[in-house]
């Protein structure tokens, strides 16, 4: 489906553009961390260390400072019993940074770095699956509308226009409202690495840090409802692009030739229209992944996600700390979101510059 000319163009653009290299590096690193999260993450992201029982209180630890000599200190309020009067009183305790929690901990004593690493799983999965699902619905819809044309095209595209009457976040929130009383539908995806490290099916020597991996969470909560909602909100864009392409492709001579040879409409759509329409669809899909990552973050920030192990939910959780000096809890997940979205956007710019000969070599535009 991808011709040699396109491959050469991708390669040339990649070598010339520093931005494309940075984008690819960012995306690859984030996807690898997401996949190998149990090996990379230093702690279990869900373990709370608030000082109950024998466990030590590790809440509200600040991150390590990048500049030696300027250490961050965290402040946390604790209720203690005065030994003389026997009354409860609030004491503020200063907390120094701790090497084993490089990005600090939140109010529940959960390790922020580990939460970022596991949050990447949800963001990337929702981004990729959401965009894929949207394309799966939108592309056939648009191709059929554009290829058949006439009344059918009018009807289908009018219906699609109705979807565009809603701003995407508004529609997403309204759809969430529909699903919320069923309980947010989430599913537990078992972690193959943890399962392998806990059993003896694979020799543990083959798994890096097997002892550590065996203690990590056995499953990741995946928000099914949110993925469906973001796909429902965004399929129209795929339909519009696919329709436009099909509309111009159906007038090509090779389509007429195929038809006169007796090829069925389905065959023509599959063998001729889709392959020739695929480049703009791929470029759109990349932009959509970035957009969906942001949308998912917004929805989980608003508490509509169904799982709290996401970047957006962590930002919400750290919100109260902003005015009391605990700035890192909200700041870190935001930086992670920016890294992911910048990476995907740069990748999209590269694909567009390389695949679209009309604007070749110019890295501007949207």
């Amino acid at each position, binding site marked *: 489906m991808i011709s040699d000319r396109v491959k050469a163009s991708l390669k040339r653009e990649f070598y010339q553009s520093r931005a494309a290299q940075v984008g690819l590096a960012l995306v690859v690193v984030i996807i690898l961390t997401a996949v190998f999260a149990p090996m990379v993450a230093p702690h279990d992201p869900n373990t709370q260390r608030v000082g109950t029982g024998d466990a030590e209180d590790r809440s509200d630890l600040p991150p390590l400072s990048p500049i030696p000599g300027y250490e961050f200190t965290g402040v946390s309020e604790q209720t203690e019993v005065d030994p003389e009067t026997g009354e409860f009183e609030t004491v503020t305790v200063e907390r120094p940074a701790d090497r084993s929690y490089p990005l600090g901990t939140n109010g529940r004593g959960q390790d922020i770095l580990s939460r970022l690493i596991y949050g990447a799983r949800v963001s990337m999965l929702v981004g990729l699956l959401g965009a894929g699902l949207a394309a799966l619905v939108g592309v056939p819809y648009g191709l059929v509308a554009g290829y058949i044309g006439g009344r059918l095209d009018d009807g289908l595209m009018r219906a699609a226009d*109705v979807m565009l009457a809603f701003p995407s976040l508004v529609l997403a*929130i*309204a759809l969430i409202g529909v699903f919320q*009383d069923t309980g947010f539908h989430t599913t537990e995806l078992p972690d193959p690495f943890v399962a392998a490290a806990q059993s003896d099916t694979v020799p543990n020597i083959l798994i890096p840090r097997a002892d550590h991996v065996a203690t990590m969470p056995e499953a990741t909560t995946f928000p099914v409802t949110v993925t469906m909602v973001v796909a429902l909100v965004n399929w129209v864009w795929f339909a519009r692009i696919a329709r436009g392409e099909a509309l111009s492709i159906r007038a090509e001579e090779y389509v007429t030739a195929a038809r006169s040879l007796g090829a069925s409409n389905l065959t023509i759509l599959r063998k001729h229209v889709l392959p020739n329409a695929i480049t703009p669809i791929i470029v759109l899909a990349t932009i959509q992944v970035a957009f969906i990552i942001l949308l998912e973050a*917004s929805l989980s920030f608003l508490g509509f996600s169904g799982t709290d192990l996401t970047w957006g939910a962590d930002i919400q959780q750290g919100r109260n700390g902003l005015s009391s000096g605990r700035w890192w809890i909200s700041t870190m997940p935001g930086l992670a979101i920016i890294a992911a979205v910048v990476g995907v956007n740069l990748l999209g710019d590269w694909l567009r510059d390389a695949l679209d000969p009309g604007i070749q070599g110019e890295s501007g535009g949207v």
Partner: protein
Amino acid sequence: MQYGRFLLRRVVHSLFVIWGAATVVFLLRFLTPGDPVTVLAPPDAGDEVRDALRQRLGLDEPVHVQYFEYITDLMVADFGKSMEVLDRSVLDWIFWTRFLRSVELAVSATLIAIAIAIPLGVISARRRHTVSDYGATLFSLGGISTPNFWLGLMLILLIAVPVGFIPTGTPGPLLHEAVGDLFAGDPGTLGDWLRFMFLPALTLGTYFTALITRLTRSGMLEEIGKAYVKASRAKGLPETLTMYRHVLRNTLIPIVTILGLQLGTLIGGAIITETVFEWNGLGQLLIERINARDWTMIQGIVIIIAIGFVSINTVVDLLYAYLDPRVIDE
């Protein structure tokens, strides 16, 4: 095709889209699992109370009758009554204050964006491959990649907390109140308005600033390569005149259409910015009503947003076709 016919077609189309949107919203309520009466009635309510409630909400009618009543009510701008607080109409005065607040926020954000982005885009395109160009490009990449709720929190952290004024909680004055007070000789209210508006508008405007900068830059670069620029340079026209009179003007026309389509992002962004700053607008109301499962209010808010969005897009399209009649034939 003549402009009159184009206008008629465009308006009919947008009316159709609004009708479709209203239908979608109506259907959403029927997809929602669970009986609203169960949610609203007190847990110990008997069958009589439930039936009375059902009748009052109009839920005892068959679906097509409900739909017909719903659409005919919409035509006379009757959005029904809140399901939770039964005697409060969806369109009462609180609603309009909130609507105004959201509009003020969105308009301020757009104005900030235009004021920053267009000069930035022009500079970036004219001094291509210089430090200022790279700076502007980097800024616009960051701007379209930053979640705006996070940006809002960071502005609170870095500006509002040190200054000691966080524009949340008590809502600031509305613009018409501020202007009224100004004419009455009290500029203080306008100062308050600015103080409350500054950070939220900056938060909401950043995405748009980044987007317009990007569009202006690439549009300018495309235009600069065209023959008429060479011609106007050759006849000795001052460079500034060429740039602003001709190149920028030609660049801006397509940008306006894209901005119309991107308006949805602005409205969505407004919802989440309102949550961050506890801005008492339509977006916060929507979130609140979703959590209260107040479907008539949700329907009303979503439809009003859709109507606003579609109307602005229609006006933008009509303006565009007026400025550049070539699109009418496409």
